[in-house]
């Protein structure tokens, strides 16, 4: 048996497939996006009959998988932490009703955060919804925990959350993929069976279900106290201090203790809710000081019954920071301080302070993420700014095009779909405060389908007036090119039975002004933007929708243009920086002495869009360059 390198998300996918799961749904979101792709890869490898889909949003994904579980099949749903907010309605309800086939929710948290609007802790969501949660520390453990999660879910007829974090999802570990896990018993003979007091429980029955749920949790907490998922390492490292750690922080803690040169007992918690109280209480009783290291919030710490000697995230201005990732340096510094205060002799930090201080002071260029060269979103934003300037309000949304904030063409973003509702709200508030600035909102194709349709209907029905640009690049680009309902293929690349037309959908929402344009044609695009704004402002107008259509350059490998337009920047360029700031293409590079801008041809895609970005006319098509002969 040969080991292979496996991404954390793929390890979870392998766990899903090898444990006989039959229905897997997901909506993409960093850091969870590779889970469903892994499921599809390994269902093909093992020739398993598994239904997979990229659902339109997390609530839809959750309920489709839940129905499969109520039929009696094993089912799983994957999403990122803020996706669970969208799916929280069915989560809370399903905790009461319970499940039939094992039902596992994989919800990836993002301590930091690296790619999210919040640092919320899904383990706390599990606590509030009253469902058990598993907290794996490595890809290998995550794969094994999928099995434990299905077993627990079926034993107690309860949904179970598996909660990895970014560093686990995007870790790659050497694993043996083939092995004892690969047997397939075929599709079980199950059918959905009516059970009104459960599946259609009215409030009276809901109360009984709540009592039943509470009892399940007490039994599960007892079971967890004896579970091999919770264990003590370095038990003989006796002393005044003990550590409770979970998730990735468990291994980071061991690494830091190694660097510090000390041995301290660690209680490793794999099941943060319900907390195995018996085990935790007996561990805590042995020490004068307890350090709790968990991410991103204080799920374990909050449940510890006697917190008088506990140092953790909940302490205000304490040794463990209340927000942010527990990086190796953060953990090292927490342990170094706490352990030396308790009289342990610890090694100094291995980092060279002098060098660190010097580097901090160096003027190293900061490279924030930017839209790719040739990205049509940039052209759409640039046209918007040329049309409406700074005197407009630009509600934005979630996707690559959130980077429009660099171009000052995105003023707000809240959550999926909020561009439309915020535009609606700004319109109504502006009417009251007599602010007449145009409101121009942007949303991507996948985000529009995810959460934009209901807000659009609301805006139309209540008579809001604003311009909405649907930036349709034919894919979910930010998360790795997952198909949307507007694509003609499905998650496994088979043909979609039907594709949804975004223009038809917009018209069906009651929008009277709908237009489609290619943002690469700047002149035409600006003309249509003005027309859309005129409609929004006319006495009998309303929401005007412009669909900016051009495929993502990263996704669509066909040539960017039938006739590419290579450009040159003429000798006259004076380094005024207008193009590098207002257009911000990575291929336009200001010289270190700021004297002029050059084209970085190794990343330039010859889209020619920057010709409009120099209002002085110094960026010109290469063919027109007059060479001195």
């Amino acid at each position: 048996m040969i080991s292979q390198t496996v991404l954390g998300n793929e390890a979870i996918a392998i766990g899903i497939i090898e444990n006989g799961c039959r229905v897997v749904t997901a909506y993409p979101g960093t850091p969870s996006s590779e889970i469903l792709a892994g499921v599809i890869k390994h269902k093909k490898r093992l020739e398993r009959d598994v239904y997979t889909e990229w659902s339109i949003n997390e609530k839809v994904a959750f309920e489709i998988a839940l129905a499969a579980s109520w039929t009696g099949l094993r089912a799983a749903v994957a999403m990122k932490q803020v996706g669970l907010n969208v799916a929280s309605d069915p989560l809370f309800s399903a905790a009461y009703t319970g499940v039939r086939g094992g039902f596992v929710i994989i919800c990836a948290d993002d301590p930091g955060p690296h790619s999210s609007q919040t640092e919320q802790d899904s383990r706390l969501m599990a606590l509030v919804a009253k469902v058990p949660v598993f907290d794996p520390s490595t890809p290998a453990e995550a794969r094994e925990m999928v099995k434990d999660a299905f077993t627990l879910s079926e034993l107690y007829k309860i949904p179970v959350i598996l909660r990895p974090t970014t560093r686990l999802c995007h870790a790659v570990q050497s694993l043996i993929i083939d092995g004892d896990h690969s047997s397939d018993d075929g599709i079980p003979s199950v059918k959905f069976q009516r059970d009104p007091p459960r599946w259609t429980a009215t409030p009276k029955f809901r109360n009984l279900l709540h009592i039943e749920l509470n009892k399940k949790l007490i039994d599960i907490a007892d079971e967890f106290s004896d579970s091999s998922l919770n264990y003590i390492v370095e038990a003989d490292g006796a002393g005044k201090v003990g550590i409770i750690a979970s998730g990735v922080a468990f291994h980071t803690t061991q690494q830091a203790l190694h660097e510090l040169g000390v041995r301290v007992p660690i209680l490793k918690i794999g099941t943060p809710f319900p907390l195995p109280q018996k085990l935790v209480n007996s561990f805590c009783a042995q020490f004068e000081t307890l350090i709790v290291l968990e991410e991103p919030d204080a799920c374990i710490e909050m449940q510890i019954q006697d917190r008088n000697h506990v140092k953790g995230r909940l302490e205000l201005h304490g040794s463990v920071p209340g927000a942010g990732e527990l990086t190796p340096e953060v953990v090292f510094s927490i342990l170094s301080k706490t352990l030396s205060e308790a009289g342990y002799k610890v090694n100094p930090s291995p980092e060279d302070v002098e060098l660190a201080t010097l580097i901090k002071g160096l003027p190293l260029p900061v490279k924030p993420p930017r839209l790719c060269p040739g990205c049509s979103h940039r052209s759409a934003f640039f046209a918007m700014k040329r049309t409406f300037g700074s005197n407009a309000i630009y509600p934005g949304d979630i996707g690559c095009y959130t980077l429009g904030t660099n171009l000052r063409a995105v003023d707000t973003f809240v959550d999926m779909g909020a561009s439309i509702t915020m535009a609606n709200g700004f319109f109504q508030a502006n009417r009251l405060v007599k602010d007449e600035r145009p409101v121009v909102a942007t949303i991507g194709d996948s985000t529009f389908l995810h959460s934009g349709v209901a807000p659009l209907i609301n805006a139309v029905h209540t008579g809001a007036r604003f311009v909405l640009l649907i930036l349709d690049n034919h894919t979910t680009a930010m998360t790795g090119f997952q198909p949307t309902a507007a694509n003609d293929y499905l998650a496994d690349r088979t043909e979609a039975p039907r594709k949804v037309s975004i223009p038809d959908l917009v018209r069906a929402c009651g929008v009277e002004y709908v237009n489609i344009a290619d943002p690469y044609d700047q002149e035409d695009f600006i003309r249509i933007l003005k027309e859309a704004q005129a409609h929004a402002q006319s006495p009998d107008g309303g929401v005007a929708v412009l669909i900016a259509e051009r495929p993502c350059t990263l996704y669509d490998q066909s040539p960017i243009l039938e006739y590419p337009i290579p450009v040159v920047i003429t000798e006259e360029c004076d380094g005024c920086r207008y193009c590098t700031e207002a257009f911000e293409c990575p291929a336009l590079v200001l010289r270190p002495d700021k004297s002029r801008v050059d084209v970085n041809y190794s990343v330039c895609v010859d889209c020619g869009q920057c010709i409009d970005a120099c209002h002085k006319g110094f960026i010109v098509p290469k063919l027109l360059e007059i060479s001195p002969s």
Partner: protein
Amino acid sequence: MDIKLIITGNGGQGIVFLTRLFAQTAVALGHSVMVSETHGMSQRGGSVISYLKINGDEAPLIQRGTADFMIALDSNEAVRNLGLLRREGIVFVNADNGLLPEVEPHLERLNIKVMNLPASSLAFEIGSSSIANIIMAGFVVAHPALGIPMEKMTATVEKASTRNSELNLKALETGYQAGMKIFSA
């Protein structure tokens, strides 16, 4: 073999691919690996960093001051992340003239060596600016300190190349030859 390796650069330079090459080669040699990659927003041109532990612990990140080697596809990213290296560590950097002169006295004091290769220029010469990462792979493998045999890396590159296999192997060889020349001098 017990190695902590940092691989850094900018989004779009193939950092994730380069990291996987080293991880897969280590696994082919029978070692265990733990890697941490950057995905998502940063891949759109921002700073990207990978951490690779061969036969190390299971924490995905490497603590500052403890990494053995760094491969940098961008010299500014090399300087930004220098603090991750331990004393006597080695930096392999894709640059024309090494690192910023300001850090030199500290590198000398900490006995950190800088191995410089203009991989982007070499990549452009042999046909594609996008293969500087593979040139760097060849360059690093040529150094005796890592203990990774060239034939194993070649096999990994061959297996990992879904297209342009020939060009990728040429890039690997170019980096390797350049390294052999520099390191044997």
